[in-house]
């Protein structure tokens, strides 16, 4: 089968590669680009551990062919950081509020929460729970994840006010 020439932006950097059309995006990211932040939890489109951002949408990268993402802008957990290059507010808040235990689901959780807050900077608890429904966690019971996301929204709001 002919390989396909793909060109995309990953975490702000241009990437070009020759790929088999059947290569799933998660395998391209992990095995060819060495971006092992996005995890493979279920491989069946359910757990959300493989979530990455494609052109402004949270997507399960185990259910997308790299070919479909040709031309797209992709952000993985490796591309999510604070203005100073350190931890992003969401990452700080996950740490502060114990939003993780084993950490397996965390890259997908934060990548998804990042898009959620971009779309809705002031989500209610119900909106956070609905918005995070595609990400499973086997450890935390979700309570602290919801708290961390809400705290990140508050912190970002405070940062903005301080800047004004």
């Amino acid at each position, binding site marked *: *089968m*002919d390989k*396909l020439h793909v060109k995309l932006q990953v975490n702000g950097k241009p990437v070009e590669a020759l790929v*088999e*059309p*059947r290569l*799933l995006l998660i395998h391209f990211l992990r095995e060819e680009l060495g971006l092992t932040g996005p995890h493979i939890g279920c*491989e*069946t*489109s*359910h757990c*959300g551990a493989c*979530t990455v951002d494609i052109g402004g*949408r*949270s*997507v*399960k990268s185990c*259910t*997308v*062919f790299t*070919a*479909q993402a*040709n031309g797209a802008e992709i952000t993985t957990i490796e591309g999510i950081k604070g203005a100073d290059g350190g931890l992003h507010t969401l990452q700080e808040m996950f740490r502060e509020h114990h939003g993780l235990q084993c950490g397996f689901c965390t890259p997908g959780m934060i990548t*998804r929460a990042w898009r*959620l807050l971009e779309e809705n900077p002031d989500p209610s608890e119900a909106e956070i729970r*609905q*918005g*995070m*429904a*595609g990400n499973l966690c086997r450890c935390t019971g979700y309570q602290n994840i919801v708290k961390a996301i809400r705290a990140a929204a508050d912190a970002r709001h405070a940062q903005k006010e301080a800047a004004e």
Partner: protein
Amino acid sequence: MIPGNFAYHRPADVAAAARLLQEYGDEAQILAGGHSLIPMMKLRMAQPSHLIDLQDIAGLKGIGRDGDRLVIGAMTTQHELIGDPLVAEAVPLLRAAAVQIADPQVRYVGTIGGNVANGDPGNDMPGVMQCLDASFELTGPGGTREVRARAFYEAAFTTARAEDEILTRVIVPVPKAGSGYAYLKQKRKIGDYATAAAAVLLGVENGSCASAAIAMTNLAATPVFAEAAGAALVGTTLDDAAMDAAIAAMLAAIDPATDNRGPIEFKRHVARQMLRRAIAEAAGRAGRGTA
């Protein structure tokens, strides 16, 4: 969980996609959001040699109103449908159903066209489209034709769409202002298909039911448009006796199978509950001018 290999095509317009479909025949499959097809390919239950990705076809995107019809491009995602003010105002039943499909990630990419073309009895939109008496526009080598959702589903994964046709648009008649609607879905967890679900659309005039349409999801090999169940409500005040009659008619029309969502009797029980609650919810909304 590695799919078989295939050649990937990304045509720029419907005509080019149609030519590819004709050229490769049953070796080709259309790729929309891929969130039904790719899981099947990973399981090797689908092994197309050619995938025709519709994502670059701008003409298949977007939602517009054409008189008393809402016209939705096949590549419109569930996410876009949920956020669209026109849909919320004109056909809120569509939004009520879309928010109950899968999870946010799936809804960002899953399309309305893929959901109705797939033919999986677990999909939610086919029953909703039957309830609304929507039609699907199919484009093939012979031009375009429209098929009513109520005549589209023949068996599991078998529809009236010919192999060389593309489902290009979904056409939904806008219900009369003041119609009551509901989509009630029982599922084991978020992101699951329905154990049973009921779509209801009611017209109420002077306290009496003037029109009623009822369709059920995942309770047979195809969605079930329960015509007699709707008819049992018309002319009544939607009292308990009318509800019981509608439920009896619905139970006669469904044919659920035992699977990991439960035995047949359980599914019939859940179907009964979903329909009762959906009628009550729709009746509560009717006449409030929310369409």
